[in-house]
């Protein structure tokens, strides 16, 4: 029986995505004044209206936008913006701008979706190492570097040799438990890891699709997510990232390439879901830790504040949300865009309207919600 639960795919744009060159205020002359070198030509923009439009490198997202499947969250950020990659990313991950938090917001979502930790695959991260957003003590989350080799002994290439190693491992970890609690715990954890990997590795075998994802890492990441989602292991939260969007120099070329990759991957993922009749069960959220300076530096743009997020899915009510911040000198915040909606409003909307969970403990407070997704 297919899992009809709703799931969330988070795509993190690491390094600080340049909002102004993503959703371009092409109708505002000041944009071209501030962005003398690093801008998108007016005639290349894919218009949303007379003032704003998508970068041409978001064409697949524009296509979904035209179908009403993309919510653009403008001016997203938080008070006293931090322009350091690590710290600002931590803030987004822990939903705690004012102090150093330790629990990830998605880890808490996973805990609330699966309070007894019955399914080790409720949350799955694609990439090595666990993003802090998913980290909560006692909440198991699988971190998958490569779905095909995921699990123990990926370096043993020979299948029969690997089987021997895994059998011995099961014997060593799964035997009669002694009275040492630490050894018992290690044994249990090892067996959990073994089982989780056995299940996950079957996903690619079960999968078939007409979609051909590109060869770049984010496209392959989205393909892996599609495989796991369609394999119905009960995974509700998926996480992946792409970068680096830290375009201090040569931005035009780099930013274009990155968005070609991300929007291509997300567009293909949506089509894949549609092919399998599952586009209404999944929401994709794309975010970055901060935006970039309004004024370019002659080659790229530096760390700024105020950004854009995208929510994409069959049940999403498409359109522009929040306000696109004014770029006028008088309205700037220390040379940056002034955020006008707290990122925790977007989180709260997803947590409550999409997952039906209480957002307050997850995002650490009450925040006004948007109406960008059908409950």
């Amino acid at each position, binding site marked *: 029986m297919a899992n009809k639960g709703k799931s969330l795919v988070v795509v993190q744009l690491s390094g600080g995505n340049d909002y102004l060159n993503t959703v371009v205020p092409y109708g505002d002359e000041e944009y071209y004044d501030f962005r003398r070198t690093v801008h998108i030509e007016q005639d290349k923009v894919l218009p949303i209206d007379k003032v704003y439009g998508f970068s041409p490198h978001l064409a697949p997202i524009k296509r979904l936008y035209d179908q009403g499947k993309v919510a653009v969250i403008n001016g997203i950020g938080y008070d006293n913006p*931090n*322009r*350091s*990659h*690590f*710290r600002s990313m*931590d803030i987004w991950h822990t939903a705690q701008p004012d102090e*150093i938090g*330790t629990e990830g917001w998605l880890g808490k979502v996973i805990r609330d979706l699966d309070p007894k930790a019955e399914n*080790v695959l409720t949350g799955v991260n694609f990439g*090595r*190492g*666990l993003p*802090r957003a998913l980290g909560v*003590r006692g909440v*198991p*989350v*699988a*971190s998958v570097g490569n779905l095909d080799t995921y*699990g*123990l*002994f*990926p*370096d043993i290439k020979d299948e029969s*040799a690997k089987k*021997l*190693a895994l*059998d*011995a*491992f*099961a*014997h*060593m*970890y799964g*035997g*009669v438990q*002694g009275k040492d609690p*630490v*050894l018992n*715990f*290690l*044994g249990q*954890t*090892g067996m*959990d*890891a073994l089982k*989780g*990997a056995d299940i996950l590795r079957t996903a690619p075998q079960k999968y078939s699709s007409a979609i051909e994802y590109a060869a770049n890492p984010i496209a392959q990441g989205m393909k892996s997510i599609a495989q796991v989602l369609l394999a119905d292991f009960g995974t509700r939260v998926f996480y992946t990232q792409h970068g680096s969007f830290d375009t*201090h120099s040569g931005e035009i070329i780099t930013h274009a390439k990155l968005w070609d990759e991300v929007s291509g991957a997300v567009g293909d993922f949506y089509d894949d879901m549609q092919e399998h009749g599952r586009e209404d069960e999944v929401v994709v959220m794309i975010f970055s830790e901060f935006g970039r300076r309004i004024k370019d530096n002659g080659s790229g743009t*530096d*760390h700024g504040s105020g950004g854009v997020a995208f929510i994409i899915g069959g049940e999403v009510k498409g359109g522009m949300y929040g306000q696109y911040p004014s770029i006028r000198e008088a309205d700037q915040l220390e040379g940056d865009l002034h955020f006008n909606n707290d990122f925790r409003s977007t989180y709260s909307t997803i947590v409550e309207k999409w997952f039906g969970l209480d957002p307050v403990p997850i995002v650490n407070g009450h925040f006004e919600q948007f109406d960008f997704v059908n409950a």
Partner: protein
Amino acid sequence: MSQDASLMAHLMRRAGFGATRNELEECLSDGYKTTVDKLLNPGESNHMPDDLIRRYHVDQSELRQLDGAGAYWLYRMVTTSNPLEEKLALFWHGLFATGYAKLNQARALLNQIDMFRQYGFGSFRDLLVELSKDPAMILWLDNNENHKEAINENFGRELLELFSMGIGNYSEDDIKECAKAFTGWTLKNAEYMSVRASKDSIWPYGRIAWHYEYRANDHDSGEKKFLGEVGNFNGEDIVDIIATQEPTARFLSTRLFQYFASDEVGDDGNQVIKAMMDSYFESGFKVSAVLRTLFNSDYFKSEKCRYSRVKGPVESVVGTARLAGSYQEPTLDVHFLWAQTMFMGQGLLAPPTVEGWHEGVEWIDSGSLVERINFAAKELSDPTKYGVQDIIRRVTSGYRDFIQPENLVDSCLDFMGPIQVGADTREGLIEFAESQGDLQLKNGKTDAGGSAQVARLIGMIASTREYQLA
């Protein structure tokens, strides 16, 4: 292997990163007590030379980024002749946990680690003074924002709560007075450096390194009342008072016990901690004296203490690399070695908060366990590695034609430690060895296939539960 060797291997797992058989034999010829003395009185260490590292790794010459800086310290841990020096620095790094995320200044962290090497064995009082002057710590806990006219008590609070006495042994007023005493303790060009840190700025020409600056005109030189004493205290005076407190002795001894002896304290542990506290006061707060008492205690040497700690990720990575004999010279992919510590949940130089890492059994979850096993198994199942070859040579010496699986397992366990394993583990290993058949030798030596066969078993041993324990 003898009882002596098991004990010595235990000491070297705790006071270092485990011993190769060569190292173990050297220690055994010195004897336990002398080995403890040598560990506690390290002279100049032999380790991979700085110039070779800097010549090869441009990022480790500049030390701008976290991964390069982490790899730089890992080289030192993997190649040092003074393992306790690094193990103790790692202890202080966990206790005085200062992280890259807020500083965006890797060099400042490595300078702090250097300070731990220099002061880490000596007087705890001196160490706390140096810590209070450490530019990375100053920025980490906002002491650059602690002004005469407007105190910021972040550093003052953590100095008492997390670095010396522990909560419950002082009042909120003591915290405020403590913070006042540290006003004016800042870093050079604090304003520019904090703006750069807050923006992760490497512009225009990379990072500018930090050093301590005392601003007398921003120091509150008025009278303060701290832990019952009154005076025009400056920071040093506060530390003088802290160092003499019994809770400080208890706090330090307990933390050292948990790191070097056992995750759980228990009744036996409390007795040892009491003796450690006595040494603390008798020696004039000397950390080396406290450690000597611990290492020479009956409890530490007892069977009960063995394998009673979960290895931390860094400990595990470094121990494995030392045993394998890898990363002995500049290596292209060393940044992955640092990344391993991150994957396993202890990103070196990047503790998540000032509270450091949650240690012991909390190191283990299914994700981090898989990372540990995969790393150790890969390193140690590689028969081209010098350390693996050495184990293979020792395992096969004394045999001529073949070695039966059971003997091979016991011999590998011996020369990799000795490592003691439970019955299930040993059976699983024998089952694995049997699946590979007898090890065939020609005149007492393995061919390439034979070496690979032993190496596979060594990799399997590195995958056991017991290998996760120290």
